[in-house]
Each structure stands twice: as structure tokens, then as C-alpha cells.
């Protein structure tokens, strides 16, 4: 008890003003009817056909992109551990650096690459391969999600992998474990906090994005994020937008509980 608790006063002010009050305000709008009075209509609106369709598509695309990120990131973390490249904090630098190119432009760049007469088709043609026509399809949106959120999957897994004591791996081999068995029984369980952290860091932004679907879906891929955003910017129906956002918070709470369960010590953070 060497330090006074008063030091955290500004932080507590920010927690109240920046987190608690805003969530209460969104709840207030979510449970209020447009004309006044308490209602559940804004919440149950999620079950209308077109909202359910958008939510279903969002869940599907977010699941697929999270899975792809995981499949790509796990071997990457393992390889980085073994290679010289993985040392001296250089990896974190390489994965954070792309954030300095604006997020919107980075996503936009995929338009240039994926276009019918774009760079990728040029390469495919030169190789004598058939052209791709991914632009404005859900596939392009998934690609954009994987591209934008992959670092958030690699970093926590990489941090978890780097913490594994190599003596444990040697001990497993000495005790007669095969390679596959060692990965399954030693590496994988020790990576679980990182994996869970990575999954929440990718799934939630992918589920709620409206920018990626706007840019790479060409207006044909309508996600739940697009609907919420339009309620605020186009339709000016804040009540409905807040109600739908509250429903989305259910997914966020689920992921927070999962994270708490698997990552008690906060080991899997990407910092």
C-alpha cells in the first residue's frame, strides 16, 4: 500500500464519463420509442426478415474470416518463433507498421488489386490462369476482413508462443512424444489464451464492420454494421440504431466472458 488510491481518480472519471454513461445512453435510446415511452420494439426489430438476413450474413462472414485468420496466424506464430526474424521485437514492428497507412486506403487498395482489369488479374493472365472476379462479392469482403484484422490474430498467438519454455518442448520429445503429439499436447494448450484473445480481436470487428463491406462489397453485401450505420447517418432513427447496437452488445459480452474464462491472467493480450 505504498501509493495513494487517489492517483487513479482521473481514470475513474474517464471510466464513468467515457464508458458507463455512454452505454447507459445507448440503452436509454434503445428502450425508448421514437415518439416517447418505453418499448422493446427497437430490440425485437432485429428479428425482422431483412435484419435477420444481414445478421446471418455478418455472422457467416465474420466466422469465415476469423477461421481463415486463425489458420493463417497459428503457423505464422510458430514459424516466427523458430526463425531469426522473430527476435528483438522486430515482428511486432512489422505487424503494427501497416496501421500507419490509413485503414480506409489500405482497404481501398484491394479494389485496385481485385478489379477486373486489376493487378491480380494481370498476374493471373500472365501465368495463363483464369481470371478472378471477386470484386463486389462476399468473398472480397472476407478477404478485406482477413487483411485488416490478421495482425490482431498473429500478435496474441505470437506472444503466447514466445512465452513457451523450450525445455518443455525438449522434455516432451525426450519422453517419446512424436512431433504431432507434442504440438497437440504442449504447444496448443499453452497457446489457448492467445488464440481466444485473437479470436475476439478479429471476430467482433469483423461482425460489426460497415467500412469493409461498403468498399469491397459495392453495396451488394449488406451487413448488420451497414444497417446500424445507416440508421444513424441516413435514416436518422437513433432509437432503432441504438436498439440494434444493444443486440450486438450481446455478442460482445459473450466474447468478454469467454476471454475472462480462458485468459485469466491477461497473458494473451496483443501488447
Amino acid at each position, binding site marked *: 500500500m505504498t*501509493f*495513494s*488510491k*487517489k*492517483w*487513479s481518480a*482521473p*481514470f475513474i472519471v*474517464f*471510466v464513468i*464519463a*467515457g464508458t458507463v454513461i455512454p452505454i*447507459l*445512453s*445507448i440503452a*436509454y*435510446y434503445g428502450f425508448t420509442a421514437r415518439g416517447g415511452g418505453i418499448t422493446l420494439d427497437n430490440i425485437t426489430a432485429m428479428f425482422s426478415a431483412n435484419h435477420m438476413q444481414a445478421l446471418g450474413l455478418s455472422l457467416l462472414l465474420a466466422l469465415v474470416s476469423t477461421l481463415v485468420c486463425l489458420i493463417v496466424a497459428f503457423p*505464422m506464430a510458430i*514459424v516466427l518463433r*523458430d*526463425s531469426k*526474424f522473430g527476435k*528483438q521485437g522486430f515482428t511486432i*514492428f512489422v505487424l503494427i*507498421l*501497416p496501421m*500507419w*497507412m*490509413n485503414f*480506409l*486506403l*489500405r*482497404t*481501398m*487498395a*484491394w479494389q*485496385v*488489386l481485385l*478489379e477486373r*482489369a*486489376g493487378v491480380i488479374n494481370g498476374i493471373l493472365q500472365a501465368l495463363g490462369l483464369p481470371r478472378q472476379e471477386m470484386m463486389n462479392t462476399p468473398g472480397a469482403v472476407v478477404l478485406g476482413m482477413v*487483411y485488416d484484422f*490478421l*495482425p490482431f490474430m498473429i500478435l496474441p498467438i505470437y506472444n503466447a508462443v514466445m512465452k513457451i519454455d523450450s525445455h518443455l518442448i525438449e522434455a516432451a520429445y525426450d519422453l517419446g512424444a512424436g512431433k504431432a503429439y507434442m504440438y497437440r499436447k504442449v504447444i496448443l494448450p499453452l497457446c489457448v489464451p492467445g488464440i481466444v484473445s485473437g479470436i475476439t480481436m478479429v471476430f*467482433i470487428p469483423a*461482425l*460489426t464492420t460497415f*467500412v469493409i463491406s461498403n*468498399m469491397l462489397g459495392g453495396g451488394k453485401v449488406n451487413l448488420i454494421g451497414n444497417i*446500424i*450505420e445507416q440508421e444513424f447517418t441516413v435514416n436518422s432513427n437513433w432509437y432503432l*440504431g*441504438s436498439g440494434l447496437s444493444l443486440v*450486438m*452488445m450481446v455478442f*460482445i459480452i459473450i466474447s*468478454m466472458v469467454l*476471454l475472462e474464462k480462458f485468459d485469466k491472467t*491477461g497473458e494473451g493480450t496483443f*501488447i
Partner: protein
Amino acid sequence: MKKFFGNLYIVIIMLFLYLPILTLIVLSFNEAKSMSVFTRFSLKWYGEMFHSKLILGALVNTFSIALLAALIATIIGTMAVIGIDGMKQSTQMVLMGCNNIPMLNADIVTGIALMLSFLMFGISLGYCTILFSHITFCIPYVILSVRPRMNKATDTLFEAALDLGASRGYAFRKVVLPELLPGIASGFLLSFTMSIDDFIITHFTRGAGINTISTLIYSEVKIGIRPSLYALSTVIFLIALVVLLVVNWNNIKNERTAA
């Protein structure tokens, strides 16, 4: 052989991460406005960038907000870590739970919630509301980077310094702060990066007439983005690359001499 495939895998992932960035850099030197045809090398978009009041205004907003937000978040976050240290375990748990909310919450929900609460209290949206929102989402990153540095040893060292006759302020400056410094530095850098790259929260908490680079780009998406914005982003990216490389290179050198 195994090493070869490992390195090949790293190269492929790096290409995936950096190919779009390379594309934008190349396009910033394209004379035509077209995104698909490279006509001729030209620096005209770089010239236009320096003459556009809109772009320069957005640039100043983006960087001043990022700098202020990162600075204030770093101070508040570091103070919070120091204060939380003396609290009961259960209070610590609750506060850290609240701390995680802005980080795990979807940006769109955070942005909307902040916007609604500003408007409920009659605060008009503008520069200050963006700044406040950025501080809110930066603090968790600072706390998560600084907190692991604050441990039993820090407490013990601090008490030892007091026993040896240091004043509280002196002991804090000479013992605690150097211990926390690496965490503070990475928290600041992370906050700054997150603030620069943010679009969604800014989109909801900005008022009409104020732009950051992100919102300026978003407003041009439908009508076609002017390549001068590619030029601007290229300049920012290259400056960040050089600065971060220098910092990293120094770290690597220090580690080598230490080892």
C-alpha cells in the same frame, strides 16, 4: 529445408500485408487520376497535397488529436496503474473489467454510445468530442502496457528508497518511473498509432465541418478518392517507417551490446 518453407511462409504473409500499401505508394506517383492504369510518373499529387487547405487542415487535426490523446491517455493510464496498485483485489478486478470494455467493444457501438451521450448532455460535436473519445479508447492500451511493469519488486524498491532517506517524490522519480518507462513508451506509441488509424469512432463523434484524414478519405470514397490523399498517406507511412526503424535499430543494438 524446413527452414526454407518457414521463411517462404513469412515472405508470403508479408507480401499479403504490404502489397496493398505498395500499390498505394505506386499510385501516388501516377499522373492520371485513374486507379487502374499507370500512365506516367509524376509528382503532381504531392504538389496538390501541399496546396489543399482541406488536406492540410485534416492533417493538423489528425496529428494534434493523436498527440494530445496519446499524451493525456498515457498520463491518466500511468496514474491509474499506480493508484490501482494499492486497491483491494476485488476493486482492481472491477476496474480492469471496465478498462477492457472500450477495447473489446465494437468500435461502432463505442462510437454511437459516445455520440449519444454527448448529445444527451447538450455537448455539440467537434474537435473536443473527438479528442475525448480518442482518450477513452487509448487509456486501456496504456494500462495494459504499463500494468505488467508494476509488481511486487517495484513496491519493495520504492520502500527501500524511502528507508534510505529518499523523499516520496524523489523515490518515485528515481525508482518507480524508470521501472515503468518501457511500458509507458509502448503505451504511448500504441495509443498514437490507434488514434491516427481510427476511422469509425471519429466518424460518429465528429461534428460537421471538422475532418481528420480518415473522415476526409471516407467522404471521397463514393466520388473517387483524389490521389493527393495517397500521396499524403505515403508521406506519413514513410516517416513512420523511418522513425520506427531508427527506434527499433537502437533497441536491437542495445540488446546486442547487453548480450
